């Protein structure tokens, strides 16, 4: 009798405890992310597909087509072409295509790059029904972004990428997007057409 009464009491107590816990959860905010309407921001070290890093001073790609990434790629999914433009000291990239259908996201290309010219993007909404959507022209993407930003009156896209091994001048230069840069727009405006269409002049690329 005593035991069964004790059992009833402890059982009832545990029921009340359970209900107290659930009502506590009831009044806490929801944690759902309404996916198509909103999505999570990927953490800084998320390893998505690669993308070209922009030089915050010129607004153009840091990459100078040394082709180390192309060689490091085990799946043969990167194609890089570069050219030496008139008046430039270094070669610059003119064509950078990532075939994401073959990419296994191993990251060898980023490891191989000595100048921090490519990095992992944070993009992950990559679903598509067309295979062509996964042949990514990263160079064209970068240039389009720059042109769009120029059209919008900014010197370069507001989200200026953080260069891993930043060139010494990058830290000192005022790279805040609000500041209308005096120097960059001009050379960009003149060079843009040339750089944006690498195909018309296929004679330029020097193959190492």
């Amino acid at each position, binding site marked *: 009798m005593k035991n*069964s009464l004790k059992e*009833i009491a402890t059982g009832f107590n545990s*029921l009340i405890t*359970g*209900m107290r*816990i*659930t*009502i506590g*959860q*009831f009044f*806490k*905010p*929801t*944690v*759902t992310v*309404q996916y198509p309407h909103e999505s999570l921001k990927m953490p800084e070290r998320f390893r998505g597909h690669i993308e070209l890093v922009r030089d915050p001073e010129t607004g153009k790609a840091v990459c100078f087509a040394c082709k180390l990434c192309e060689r490091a790629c085990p799946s043969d999914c990167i194609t890089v072409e570069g050219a030496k433009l008139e008046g430039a000291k270094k070669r610059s990239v003119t064509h950078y295509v990532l075939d994401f259908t073959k990419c296994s996201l191993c990251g060898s290309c980023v490891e191989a790059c000595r100048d921090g010219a490519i990095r992992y993007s944070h993009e992950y909404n990559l679903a598509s029904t067309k295979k062509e959507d996964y042949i990514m022209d990263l160079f064209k993407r970068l240039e389009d972004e720059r042109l769009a930003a120029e059209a919008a009156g900014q010197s370069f896209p507001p989200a200026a990428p953080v260069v891993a091994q930043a060139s010494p001048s990058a830290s000192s230069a005022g790279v805040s997007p609000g500041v209308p840069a005096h120097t960059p727009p001009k050379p960009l405006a003149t060079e843009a057409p040339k750089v944006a269409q690498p195909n018309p002049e296929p004679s330029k690329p020097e193959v190492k």
Partner: protein
Amino acid sequence: MQAIQHFISAFWPEPLRLILFLVGILSFVGLNAAYLVWVERKGAARFQRRPGPTEVGYAGLLQPIADAAKLMSKQLIVPAGADTTLFRLAPLLMMSPALMSLAVIPWSRNLAACNLNVGLLMIFAFGSINVMAIMLGGWSSRNKYAIISAARVVSQNVAYEIPMLLVVITMIMVTGTMNLAEIVQHQAGPIWKWYFFRWDLNPLAPVTCLIFYTCMLAETNRAPFDMAEAESELVAGAYTEYSGMGFGVFFMAEYANILLGCALATVLFLGGWQSPIGNLLGSSQSVFGVLLGIFWFFVKMYFLVFSVVWIRWTFPRTQFYGLLNLSWKILIPVSLITLILSSAMIKLFHP
């Protein structure tokens, strides 16, 4: 109020009044059954820290309508070899007792579709038809899961009918009437006049209320006693073979029965339409008083409905012997004790 009643009785003949009440009750039950599904889904979501239905209408408010449209557009399949008549009859048998019983619930002063002198008796007389409806539904669908489930439901409901009726007998002794409106009248006044707090009449009054509530959960086949539709074991229980609105009516009937059970608990223990803070806002005889009564009734009733949802999403389903143990070893002895104690109290102190 008197003037309105005279007006109604002078110009609206009895049949019209009846039709009006019937339409009112039917639409009330339909609306509640539909929107309690929404409450259930929203509540379930909140208990799991999800937002619940959000897409159809503001905060998913049109979700029940979308669900109903979907269910109605589905084909009504009668399984081969099933007893067609009984198969079709079962959902109606499940729904109609709840509808009929709600007619005698006094929603506020002088506001009951049918003020029966034996209202309580009528509710429990009709309440037992539910069991038969599930039994028929399970048996006539010629499906072994449905039959097993129906057998479970019958043994569960028989087990829980006993403590429930013992509690109700206690309440009838305490109140001295089976008229629900009179039961509420007896609880007029401050909050300690509610039968939930009447220690002097029934020393175990809160326990009695708790037993009634538990039995109500079991009778309506709600979690944690949802043996009738134990999804993980019995597909959808007795409703396995039902499709479209046949299933929908069973589903609505479940919520109508919950509504009935909560309304009954409100009337018997929580003072029905009586205000817990007394009549601060003038006479309860006026139209305003009647509206206030409806308000208090709904507050209490929907709190109980919410707690049903709360319980569902807190406790896991009991095992079957646990369920029967609870009834036969705890609820029936305790309700017998309350019966004896309260009869002694009434004999000794309130002759």
